[in-house]
């Protein structure tokens, strides 16, 4: 089953809306952090769909917009903490991109809480769980993404 199908399945049960979050996690830190949360049996909301990317610097704004257009209610990008990037500075270049994107979407009238960015290291399983809880809670407060989603 493709990711979009997985996302869509939840859209269909609209009577009990549950936020769908797509998380782009860098391979070296945040994905490992998510893994650690798993092996440490730290509970976090099931709403998140993880897409592993080599580096937060790999994430193009088009990825996020496409996720939102395809029915995600929120998007999270997480990379290594500054200074820890496997590729030295991928996350720092990404930081500029995300700062601009976040403000651009806000300017365009998209709720800023729908698109979130953070750093989670490989050892921060607990932090990963807390971040997911926050993002899910923020998006739950906003309600379903109706602005950018494409009606098919």
């Amino acid at each position, binding site marked *: 089953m493709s990711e979009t*199908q997985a*996302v*869509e399945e939840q*859209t*269909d049960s609209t009577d009990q809306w549950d936020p769908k979050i797509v998380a782009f996690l860098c391979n070296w830190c945040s994905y490992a952090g998510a893994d650690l949360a798993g092996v440490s049996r730290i509970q976090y909301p099931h709403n998140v769909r993880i897409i592993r990317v080599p580096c937060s610097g790999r994430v193009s704004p088009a990825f996020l917009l496409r996720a939102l257009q395809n*029915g995600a209610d929120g998007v999270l990008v997480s990379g290594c903490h500054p200074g820890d990037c496997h590729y030295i500075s991928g996350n720092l270049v990404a930081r500029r991109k995300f700062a601009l994107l976040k403000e651009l979407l806000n300017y365009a009238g998209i709720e800023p809480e729908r698109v979130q960015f953070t750093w989670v290291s490989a050892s921060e399983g607990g932090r990963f769980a807390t971040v997911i809880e926050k993002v899910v809670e923020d998006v739950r407060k906003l309600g379903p993404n109706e602005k950018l989603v494409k009606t*098919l």
Partner: protein
Amino acid sequence: MTEKTIARTDLTTLLDRLAEDAAVYIPAQDEAGEAALAEAPLDGDLALDYVNFRLSPKAFFLPQNQTLLCFQDGQVREPEQPDHRKTVLFGVRPCDASAMLALDAVFLEGDKHDPYYASLRDKTVVIALACTHPGPSCFCTSVGGGPGDAAGADVLAVPLENDLLLRAQSPKGEDLLASVSDLLADAAPEAVTQADRRIADAAEQMEAVTTDGSAQWLRENYDADLWQTISQACIECGTCSYLCPTCHCFDITDEIRGGRGRRVRTWDCCAYPLFTLHASGHNPRPSSRERWRQRIMHKFRYAVENHDRLFCVGCGRCIRHCPAGMDLRNVFKHVGA
């Protein structure tokens, strides 16, 4: 052929009457002061002195997004027609009305009749409005048309001093005039004379370039240097094609999410480098020169060879809106030169 007149002051009554059982689109001004077809009713008097609408009316027959098929969990079905209600377009300029015949040639002729085009065309009645004040980029008289030559329209309206002359041009047009006959008077011979004179005056105002023999000239000059020099300014946007009333090239793409989706036909344009690009990377029309030539060849040669008509009606939108100030009439200055 029925010829009637109606007082200009009664025009809104007529349109209101038509709106009882049809979606009626009438000339309106958008914020930028450009004319557009908008759904009636509008308040106040109808302005009839626009040069032409910013967009051609082709979108009424060839919508920019046309769902061809619907997908649902592996099932494929034809889309339901959203609205069977009759549509009346009032104020279409004669050039644009003629352009419909070009589209008819592509979408209705032959064995591959296009059902989507056909149903929209069928339910639409077009009332053309003759031009009395052509704009500086109008050149219908150069391509076999004229300010009162609205072949393709069901009714031709000609603005007179105080009235409009209404001339039925098709059975649909006859029916329409019959349905509002109580609002109309039989056209007096003077009205017809006045209408003809106004149309002739308008034709006089247009500077003509000759496109006679252009198909033959284009056959002989396929490899001329002219194409290189003339296409240099083209930035390969789709403005000319998208605004053109006869351009009809399209793309078909699928959109799907979770088993639900559609196959959509959208406008496309031969100026785009990707239009003909093969999956192998080979492009049969690799540069602006070939692509720009294709557009001219299609309109002025291939269309003549295949459909015995020019696929250019002289509306001038491509000239008026070209971001690079290009003018396709310049090609024809070379014909016979």
